[in-house]
């Protein structure tokens, strides 16, 4: 227990404390730091570019969280009801594969797929939709959704596998009883599957929302925050501020704000789950 606590304190708690401390200073990372009070936080909440990055994160929740969880539910339900054991195992492995692929590799592969001469545009041209082709990651209108699509691809497998595991724990007798009462598939899903998966859904939402709010690697690899500021997210901005602008204090303040936002987003989900578990 003690070694684990020591490691946790050293590598998690101590950096958090230091980050909070730096947030109140103006520091270039080398020369002595200067106390600036809340000035860095004021900048975070008044600089439209920094606020914009937070907006992008919220938009990414749609792609990183809502789509994978919703699609994951649909896919898991179909696999649970329809597919044979062999097909189900194969589909599970295929869907989970993106979790195994390093995000950097996924980012590079997707930037090829979404490039102007990539597979997506070639397919669109082949089916007569050449007019809508574009460099998806280089277009202001589509860059953020395209980054979101990569995130959805990565997280769909995780959600599906988690939800499938949850479904296997639901008592089959409940479905038989419902069928005897004349319930159809939709009623079964709404009355048995969904309530039975509440904990798994909470885990999925928690993990994916955190992934959306703290996104860095996929964005860094695929767009570096461009074009313009179209895909800049707080994680990337913190990196830029700390290592390129050498404004460690401002970067720390943004990191603290991001941490608070993550906690605020996750806390209600955790409370709801716990309440449900208690009842």
């Amino acid at each position, binding site marked *: 227990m003690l070694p684990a606590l020591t490691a946790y304190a050293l590598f998690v708690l101590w950096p958090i404390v230091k980050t909070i401390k730096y947030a109140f200073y103006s520091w270039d990372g080398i020369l002595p730091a200067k106390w600036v009070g809340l000035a860095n936080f004021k900048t975070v909440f008044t600089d439209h570019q920094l606020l914009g990055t937070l907006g992008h994160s919220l938009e990414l929740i749609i792609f990183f969280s809502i789509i994978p969880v919703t699609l994951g539910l649909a896919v898991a339900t179909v696999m649970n009801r329809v597919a044979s054991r062999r097909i189900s195992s194969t589909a599970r492995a295929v869907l989970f594969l993106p979790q195994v692929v390093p995000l950097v590799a996924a980012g590079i592969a997707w930037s090829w797929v979404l490039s102007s001469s990539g597979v997506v545009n070639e397919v669109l041209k082949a089916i007569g939709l050449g007019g809508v082709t574009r460099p998806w990651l280089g277009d202001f209108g589509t860059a953020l959704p395209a980054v979101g699509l990569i995130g959805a691809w990565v997280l769909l497998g995780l959600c599906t596998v988690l939800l499938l595991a949850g479904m296997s724990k639901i008592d089959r007798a409940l479905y038989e009883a419902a069928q005897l009462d004349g319930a159809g598939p939709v009623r079964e899903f709404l009355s048995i599957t969904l309530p039975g998966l509440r904990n798994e859904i909470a885990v999925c939402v928690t993990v994916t929302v955190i992934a959306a709010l703290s996104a860095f690697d996929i964005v860094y690899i695929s767009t570096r925050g461009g074009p313009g500021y179209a895909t800049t997210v707080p994680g990337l901005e913190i990196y830029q501020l700390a290592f390129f602008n*050498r404004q460690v204090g401002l970067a720390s303040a943004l990191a603290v704000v991001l941490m608070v936002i993550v906690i605020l987003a996750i806390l209600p989900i955790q409370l709801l789950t716990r309440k449900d578990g208690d009842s």
Partner: protein
Amino acid sequence: MLLVLAAVVACAGATFGASAGAAKLKAPPTEAQACGTKPVTMQAYFETGFPDPINLTKEFTRQYPNVKWHIRQDQFAVITQNAPLTLSGPNAPDLMRLPQMSGLVHDHLLKNLDGYFKQYGWNKFPASQLLQLRAGASGRPRGVGSLYAVGLNYSLTGVFYNKTLAAKVGMTGTPQTLAQLDALLAKAKAAGVTPIVQFNGGATGGLLFPLQQLMAVYGPTTPINNWIFQKPGGNIDTPANLAAMNHLQQWIKAGYFNTDANATDYPTMMSKFENGDGLLIFDGDWESGNLDTKLPGQVGFFLMPPLKAGGKHAAMSAPLTYGIAAKAKHADCAAFFSNWVSTNAKARQINVSVGGSNPGGPPSLKIPFKPGTLVAQTLAAGGVVAKENGAMDFIANATGAIYAQAWTPEVQKLFAGQEEPPNVLKNVQSAYEQELKTGA
């Protein structure tokens, strides 16, 4: 051609020699004095993807076997983010590829090279070569004060063209005025050839290449350099620069660039150009050696033409900047190496054949190149720019973060039609002033 180049740089050298005339000229240190006679391992931090410095260290070891090299390599962006910590760390590199150096000088992380300047007689180098490597004690302004870095070679930018496509679109000679360049672009477009392939995607603002060239067409280079060197009152938002920005916007609106420029990174641009996917690229002579190898005789080069026939030419021209850490253990040996790179015949030959750029050094030394090559063309162009005093540093080098945080997003927005030229200049100037305030 060589004579012209030599005469030009000699003139520049003479000017500088006058200002540094007080320097005492003793015999420069020998290798044994600088590096010692015992085995020594130099710590180096170089940029990935550029074989020139590595080949130079190999040749140095061949000539001076007691000196070995431990070379760490990273991409330029990684070097930029690591520079302060690496230079301040316990194993500070003896020789390191530098990003924008103002902040590093400000934090006392780089060795002041004025002593070596005197020891090795670098006052014989053309002053313009070392100008960008000078800075005030606080890191700004640049262009004056002490020497804090050396150039491994000295690059030049301009326009490369594909000769096959040039013939196809009816290009009979290189454009002599901006209007002729405009006409060439229009001809290429009409012939179904992409007039310009340029990178501008991700973290790269490649439109700055044509933009800065246009700035120097519409106005003098001095205010641009003053802005880059952070001299008091520097302003990028000038009528001349606005005219340049408007011209660039006209090119964008006319469809002269590859439509996916905002999704094209540098290697992709090179790959497209090498595949014949575009007539022109705005780029630097660091590609001359590469293009001579891959497309021998198939690529030409011209300097950005002036506004009116007979006008002066200008180009971005910057040293491949290397510095010695203030805490370096073998600073003397690193300085000896730097001097050797510029003055040793074999090193200069490697520098030109692999790096493709001017090896610098005293103008009395020969620049070894094969006549008729692209390297020869770009070196000759360097002579023209030096003669016409048209060298500029890169506007991307003005501050540590101006490229990533202002220029790149702004020119990407310009390309996408999301920002108008006046706002681009205003926003960049605002970011610049903010950075000067925070000392980035």
